[in-house]
């Protein structure tokens, strides 16, 4: 009656077939004294870098005993994070050794059924490679394959996932970034790129405005520098619609109407102008279009207008305008929250202009600080491989064939809209659109329309649930890598502290494995190299310029501790801006060309529709980073369920009391959660933090529409998302 298995799973089944009488080992083997000695009980330390999408990108020390990760601590040699981690960083052992981790390549038949079969890496690669080749044959190109990767792991070697795709041909790429592109473009139009002062330089400021920035939750390691500045006499102002933990510590907190930050900055600018606190020399010498903007201020902006627009009293606008303009140097930190609006980029441009007008740009202790990519001078060797000869793609503006790009921020709709050829297969790496993309219902529909979905992940989330094949990803303790921050100037090496658990592999290994398989099936079908150790690949990411800026001759020196890139403490202190005019472009022709106002002038904010009068803001959570961390048991114990922060006055209107279940809905969908009455939010704004709770279908994105913000296309390929222009109604359940 016994059937012959179609799959010779896990190789030979000798012991089984040989019969009950014989004993043979399959799991155990003769002790190898060398490896026994290697995994001894002495505690070894390794250098790691937290690779999450976070300002702080902490230097870590992992403690390994018997080949097992025992605890993770901060790296004292890291000058920005200074030997301390955050609440998330201290939970890593739970992540690495969670019994819930995805351990093996698995196949789901049919997709979404929950019927999973374990497959070998070989079978996984075979299935995927054959599917790619099959699609290529059917459609004449690899364009039906769509790749979506973002910020699950920002390690440089993880760009190998991008390399996987570029090496098989021209594919469809999710292009853009959801988080911060409007602000990036604003700074690109103004200065040529985004470039913030060294955050450690914050200690030198005399006046600090955190504009929509909650460092207590999202950049805790900047706190000591801000504190130091305050000890030296600096005043801390926080402008935020939500009274955050950071705002609670401010000398002055301003509860602004959401999306009206530009109006506040314009009001300040007008008052500064009226009192002639303008640094005319700096502004006229370093920018173009400044006087044109001054005319706009004179003709179009009044303090009364700004006060009524923003909900901030006139006297307060005058107060902060005076203080900001007369405290030298004064610094502004523009958070990513405030640009997630339909006029978000424009608001950042106005704030930039405020910095220019007061001569705070290019100064230590000053700056309009948003983020930077100056320290990311790697070779990106893992990423870029040319398509195989004869590959067909989309003819671009330059007349050459290339990838087809679609908007990462309207992913579901854009994927489904592709016709010639349609998208048939998804490859997801470092990304969980099921949890994080707007309009979850559309995402579900789009996934359902695919022929084939591959995801690479460590935990079973909504995206994995909608996949055909899931490949187990390593954690950052299980692979080599190198990481830079988009905020501080440090670069650290990430050493392999423990072996990859079970059958997990890094994106780099997966890239090489797939290439091997594709070439075996059809020679020349993939250009990705098929060999090289992770360390060899790592070495290739460094170049002379990068080494010089770090003061090292070899990347291995980073094993002695992270290094800070040698740059002046103040961005733009050399005055060499990277705009077409080489000056700060208060008047930006580029912006104008892209259909935006040339000047940093007021653009109306999005108003609440009548049907959905309440704004639902979904900022970053404290105990998680997007869909990471909150699902871990320690986090669940500290924060077992999501809550809706609602102002008592608004709650009273709906008859909602503390702890009541509230349905939050709009025409896209709904979520139901417990109410927490608090005056830390505004009367017409409810707040719930985006996060993936373990064993919960809670997901704020069921109600979030993919509304684009005004900017992002210039520098990142697509506009960002106006996450915070999300309007709902409430109902007590």
């Amino acid at each position, binding site marked *: *009656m*016994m*059937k012959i*298995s179609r*799959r010779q*799973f*896990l190789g030979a*089944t000798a*012991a*089984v*077939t040989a*019969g*009950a*009488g014989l*004993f043979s*080992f*399959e*799991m*155990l*083997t*003769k*002790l*190898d004294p060398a*490896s*026994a000695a290697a*995994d001894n*009980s002495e505690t070894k330390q390794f250098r790691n870098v937290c690779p999450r999408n976070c300002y702080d990108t902490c230097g870590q020390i992992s403690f390994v005993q*018997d*080949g*097992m*990760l025992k605890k993770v601590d901060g790296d004292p040699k890291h000058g920005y994070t200074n030997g301390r981690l955050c609440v998330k960083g201290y939970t890593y*052992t*739970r992540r690495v*050794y*969670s*019994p*819930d*981790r*995805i*351990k*093996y390549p*698995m196949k789901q038949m049919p997709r979404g059924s*929950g*019927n*999973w*079969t*374990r497959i070998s890496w070989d079978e996984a690669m075979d299935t995927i490679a054959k599917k790619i080749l099959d699609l290529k044959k059917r459609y004449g190109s690899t364009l039906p394959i769509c790749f979506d990767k973002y910020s699950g792991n920002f390690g440089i070697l993880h760009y190998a996932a991008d390399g996987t795709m570029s090496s098989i041909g021209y594919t469809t790429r999710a292009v853009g970034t959801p988080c911060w592109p409007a602000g990036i473009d604003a700074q690109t139009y103004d200065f040529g790129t985004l470039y913030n002062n060294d955050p450690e330089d914050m200690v030198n400021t005399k006046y600090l405005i955190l504009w929509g920035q909650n460092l207590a939750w999202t950049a805790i390691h900047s706190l000591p520098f801000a504190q130091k500045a305050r000890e030296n006499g600096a005043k801390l102002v926080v402008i935020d619609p939500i009274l955050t933990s950071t705002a609670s510590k401010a000398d002055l907190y301003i509860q602004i109407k959401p999306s009206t930050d530009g109006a506040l900055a314009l009001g300040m600018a007008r008052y500064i102008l009226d009192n002639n606190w303008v640094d005319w020399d700096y502004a006229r010498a370093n920018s173009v279009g400044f006087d044109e903007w001054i005319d706009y201020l004179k003709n179009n902006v009044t303090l009364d207008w700004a006060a009524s627009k923003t909900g901030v009293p006139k006297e307060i606008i005058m107060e902060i305008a005076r203080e900001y303009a007369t405290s030298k140097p004064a610094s502004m930190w523009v958070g990513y929250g405030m640009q997630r609006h339909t006029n978000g980029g424009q608001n950042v441009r106005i704030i930039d202009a405020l910095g220019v007008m007061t001569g705070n740009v290019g100064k230590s202790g000053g700056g309009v600080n948003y983020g930077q990519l100056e320290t990311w001078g790697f070779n990106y060797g893992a990423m870029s491989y040319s398509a195989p000869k004869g590959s067909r793609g989309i003819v671009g503006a330059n007349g050459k064939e290339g990838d087809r790009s679609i908007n990462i921020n309207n992913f579901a709709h854009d994927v489904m809209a592709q016709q010639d050829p349609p998208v048939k297969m998804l490859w997801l790496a470092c990304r969980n659109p099921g949890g994080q993309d707007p309009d979850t219902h559309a995402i579900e529909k789009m996934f359902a329309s695919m022929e084939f979905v591959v995801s690479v992940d460590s935990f*079973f989330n909504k995206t*994995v649930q909608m996949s055909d094949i*899931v490949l*187990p990803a390593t954690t950052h303790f299980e692979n080599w890598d190198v990481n830079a921050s988009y905020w501080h100037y440090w670069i650290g090496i990430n050493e392999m502290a*423990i*072996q*990859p*658990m*079970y*059958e997990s592999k890094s994106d780099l290994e997966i890239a090489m494995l797939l290439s091997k398989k594709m070439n075996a099936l059809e020679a020349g079908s993939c250009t990705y190299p098929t060999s090289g150790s992770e360390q060899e690949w790592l070495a290739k990411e460094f170049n002379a310029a990068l080494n010089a800026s770090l003061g090292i001759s070899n990347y291995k020196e980073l094993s002695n501790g992270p290094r800070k890139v040698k740059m002046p403490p103040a961005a733009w202190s050399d005055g060499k801006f990277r705009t077409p005019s080489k000056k700060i472009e208060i008047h930006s022709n580029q912006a104008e060309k892209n259909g935006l106002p040339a000047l940093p002038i007021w653009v109306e904010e999005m108003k609440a529709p009548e049907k959905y009068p309440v704004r639902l803001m979904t900022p970053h959570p404290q105990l998680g980073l997007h869909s990471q961390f909150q699902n871990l*048991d320690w986090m669940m114990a500290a924060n077992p369920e999501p809550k809706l922060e609602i102002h008592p006055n608004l709650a009273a209107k709906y008859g909602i009391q503390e702890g009541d279940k509230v349905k939050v809905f709009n025409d896209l969908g709904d979520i139901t959660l417990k109410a927490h009455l608090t005056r830390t939010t505004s009367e017409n704004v409810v707040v719930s933090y985006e996060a993936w709770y373990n*064993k919960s279908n809670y997901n704020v994105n069921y109600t979030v529409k993919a509304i684009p913000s005004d900017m992002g296309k210039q520098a990142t390929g697509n506009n960002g998302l106006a996450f915070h222009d999300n309007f709902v109604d409430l109902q007590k359940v």
Partner: protein
Amino acid sequence: MTEVLRIDLPNESVAHFKEIASVLLALSRVFSHGGESLDKTLPMMVKTCHQLGEYYPELLSMSAELENHSLLNEIEQQQLCFEFNRLFIGPTPPIAPPYESVYLSQDQLVMQEQTVKVRSLYQDENLMVISQGKNPDDFMATELEFAAYLLRNADKEAMQNKGLNRLKYYELYTEFSQEHLRKWLPKFVERVHQKANHPVFPMLMDVLLCTIELPLQQRRNV
């Protein structure tokens, strides 16, 4: 240890270590070869149970029931495989992860002190896990293989020419099962009993619990 050495080995005619070892080995294969190979590992498991069942009627009835469930058509086999993965493998958070430290360590994680303890037991026998550091040493299949190995070495017939101290192996088995298998398997089995959607798995669990006890029962008989 001195106290342990005073105990005699069970009478050879009632010990059946070889047969018990075979059942344990077959159980090990059920876990190491996974849900995808149940079509092979289950019948083998049933066969070994039959042989041992000659001496233990309770086991015979268990294996007879298992046999009914192991002769399945392809679709049923597949359902069995899905259920196996849901219970033990993933990618959804498995109901009963087959690793000792998940049940006994304070943290309920893999790679904890229990893992190190069984590793050192293996090392005492000059053995190690094939993929040490990747797969936890206290993985179900590995522990069962080790248990089978100890019992085989305690078996007279197998060892007669090797001059091994059979008593030592019997005591090692006793120690290993008391310190490890008997501590965590009941908790593991309970989860399977509570959440399994297919009767094969609770049955398999019963065989597992019953079999690891057999050598110890004999010790009491001495």
